[in-house]
């Protein structure tokens, strides 16, 4: 017995030493695959949607041109926000670059991107390319001098030719462009064509008057649909709701002031926009299921109440992706035959044709600058590459060169018309503010819906996250 024990103790330090160092080293070795929770990795060769061959060929040619005859090697790590089938479609648009240059692309999508990126940079293994939600991240890294200047890499003339001036401005610091707008969503009011009999044009006051009448009926069909539960990102669909109200009430210039931190969250303008949202979201009759349902229902069911049996609600103010999401529950739904939209109404005619947008911006860090990174950014800025994203039918893109007939479905084509036809494109704090503010915005929305009486202190908390 003792012999066995002693033998064991003699061996123990060796076993422990081996185990400990193995743990330490393996944890370092695997730190460079940046997949975190909620993340999903996929390589560009993974299942891709069949895209029109002529578009793919054009993109391959654009990639060859982007490489500029240079011999490119190795691989690029790209950290995005979209995973799953959405991520696959994004990766499919990157594939021609792989085919043309021989560079392999390692794409990871994480919903918690800002944190994964910060952790990656702290650990010294930042991704080569970042495809971010909004422009806030790019602006932050541009201001700290860590982002690669795209005015240098791509050239201001090419950028000006391919992108709306307002959008370029949103990703510029001191006149230099640091990020590329990719998917750019529009926001609109969706309705069920079979049952909706309210106004599709006119002012917000008209729409609101109709909504109040519907709410007063008490027949269990609320005028507005809404659902905000999204795990760690809960609350985010309401950001565009509130920002849209602000835009239509106070205009794009005031919105820019708010988005860049000049106009405080505690200002009467912001409060008024929140209260307009609250008049719907915190009401037992104006919104589907009342406020408790709003905070507890998954965003997957944001608009499905319009088509449920019995019908639960009638209008859904959300992005152009709302149609695709509703189709995941009701696959037979067609746009615009069953589900159609009208632009977000405004009380002030001056802002009737301003369109709120939000989406993805792509940028790189100077620490990872390489010929491969530069070639990819040039490729990604090209109309040919962005046409592949449009052809997936999932998103509208900001690149103004993408032809309308590239979109394979009416929902996206009509949204693209909304985007390209707008007098002014505007972005809100959800696009420009640093992640700390965006997180506080989400948390504030959830807290507000649960307890509307706390609005002042909630706004003060969001304002504090900005400093």
């Amino acid at each position, binding site marked *: 017995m003792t012999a066995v024990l002693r033998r064991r103790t003699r061996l123990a*330090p*060796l076993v*422990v*030493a*081996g185990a*400990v*160092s*193995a*743990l*330490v*080293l*393996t944890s370092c*070795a*695997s730190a*460079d*695959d940046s*997949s975190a*929770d909620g993340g999903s*990795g996929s*390589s560009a060769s993974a299942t891709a949607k069949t895209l029109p061959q002529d578009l793919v060929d054009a993109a391959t040619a654009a990639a060859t041109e982007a490489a500029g005859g240079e011999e490119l090697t190795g691989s690029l790590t790209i950290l995005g926000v979209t995973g799953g089938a959405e991520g696959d479609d994004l990766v499919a648009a990157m594939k021609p670059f792989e085919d043309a240059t021989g560079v392999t692309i*390692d794409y990871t999508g994480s919903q918690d991107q*800002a*944190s994964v990126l*910060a*952790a990656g940079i702290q650990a010294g293994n930042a991704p080569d390319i970042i495809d971010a939600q909004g422009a*806030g*991240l790019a602006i*932050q890294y541009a201001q700290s001098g860590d982002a690669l200047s795209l005015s240098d890499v791509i050239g201001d003339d090419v950028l000006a030719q391919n992108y709306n001036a307002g959008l370029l401005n949103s990703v510029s610091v001191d006149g230099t462009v640091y990020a590329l707008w990719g998917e750019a969503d529009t926001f609109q009011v969706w309705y069920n064509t079979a049952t909706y009999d309210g106004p599709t044009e006119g002012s917000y006051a008209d729409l609101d008057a109709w909504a109040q009448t519907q709410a007063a009926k008490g027949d269990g069909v609320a005028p507005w649909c809404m659902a905000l*539960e999204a*795990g*760690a*990102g*809960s*609350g985010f669909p309401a950001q565009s709701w509130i920002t849209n109200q602000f835009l239509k009430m106070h205009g794009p210039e005031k919105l820019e002031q708010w988005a860049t931190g000049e106009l405080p969250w505690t200002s009467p303008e912001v409060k008024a926009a929140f209260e307009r949202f609250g008049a719907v979201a915190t009401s037992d009759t104006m919104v589907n*299921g*009342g*406020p*408790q*349902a709003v*905070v*507890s*229902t*998954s965003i997957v069911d944001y608009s499905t109440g319009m088509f449920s049996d019995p019908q*639960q609600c009638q209008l859904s103010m959300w992005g152009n992706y709302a149609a695709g999401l509703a189709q995941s529950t009701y696959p037979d739904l067609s746009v615009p035959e069953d589900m159609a939209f009208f632009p977000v109404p405004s009380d002030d005619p001056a802002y009737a044709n301003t369109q709120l947008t939000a989406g993805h911006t792509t940028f790189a860090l100077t620490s990872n600058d390489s010929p491969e990174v530069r070639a990819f950014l040039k490729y990604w800025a090209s109309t040919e590459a962005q046409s592949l994203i449009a052809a997936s039918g999932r998103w509208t893109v900001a690149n103004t060169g993408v032809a309308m007939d590239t979109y394979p479905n009416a929902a996206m084509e009509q949204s693209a018309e909304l985007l390209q036809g707008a007098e002014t494109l505007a972005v809100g704090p959800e696009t420009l503010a*640093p*992640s*700390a503010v965006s*997180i506080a915005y989400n*948390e504030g929305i*959830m*807290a507000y819906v*649960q*307890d509307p009486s706390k609005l002042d202190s909630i706004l003060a*908390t969001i304002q504090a996250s900005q400093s």
Partner: protein
Amino acid sequence: MNTLTLGRDLLVGVLLVPAVVLLLAAAGERALHRIDHRVAQRLRPWGWLTPVLVAVVAVLVYPTVLTLVRSLRGADGTGFVGLDNYLWALTGDNLRSLLNNALWVVLLPLGVVLLGLVMAVLIDRVRYERTARSLLVLPTAISLTAAGISWRLLYSWSPEGRTQLGVLNAVLTKLGLSPVPWIARPPSDMQWLNTVALIGVGVWAGLGLSVLVLSAAVKAVPEELLEAARLDGAGEIRVFLNITLPFVWPSVLTVATTQFTAAVKTFDVVYVMTNGGAGTNVVANQLYTELFRYPSDLGHASAIAVLLLVVTLPVVWFNIRSIRREAL
């Protein structure tokens, strides 16, 4: 992770690291052979300990000291702000997080130990013991993140009269009761119950290990003692309280203390299920937020980390002491 990096990691972890450690040890032994026997005898333990010590200093001591220093500094890790960060960590919204952690600390060990004991004693008496134990241990194989996502669906709530997608509320509605917003109660409706619902997930996930440990202890209770007590007319409850419980007490303490530390630093379940919303925030989730959102606040994050360490240390010390005593 693709197969290439997986292969590389395996190579490094399984082969290279132990090989390097062994080589180092062998080289050390050779060097020791050359010097005086008695000196060598004294040096030998240190030679063998060095790799472990280096690892411990690199991954434990150094970060701890750095965290201590940073907890006294500003948001960007510079300047000196005294105890400001600690003051912040103990007031305002953080008070809520602290109270929630207190709830976790009381209810998680209590739930895991009590249910674990009941299960351990009960499955000791049934014929399908193995099957029952396997079923109870199964949740241990599921990561807390996955468990959180599953439970978010189980807890799902819809307004009364609608189809309930969550299993729990579907059952309640079938029984003619009102559905309960398990993890989304509003502030006006005993919001602390949201945290209790999250703790429930923690108990479910921790129960397996607890049953394993406690059921081994229950089996070690001498049968003849139980027999004797029963012959003397003691009821089953009396037998449990006066004989079984004192025998398994050390195991109960082990389970309780590990669950205590888990409760202090609880994160996964909260992050995945509510991200601290609906009044369920906990200290570790706040730490994560402070550290990884942009711009991050290193001072706040470090102060929270130090507080967590201070709270956990006595329990860890107690645990190590009792493990040592058991070993003797």
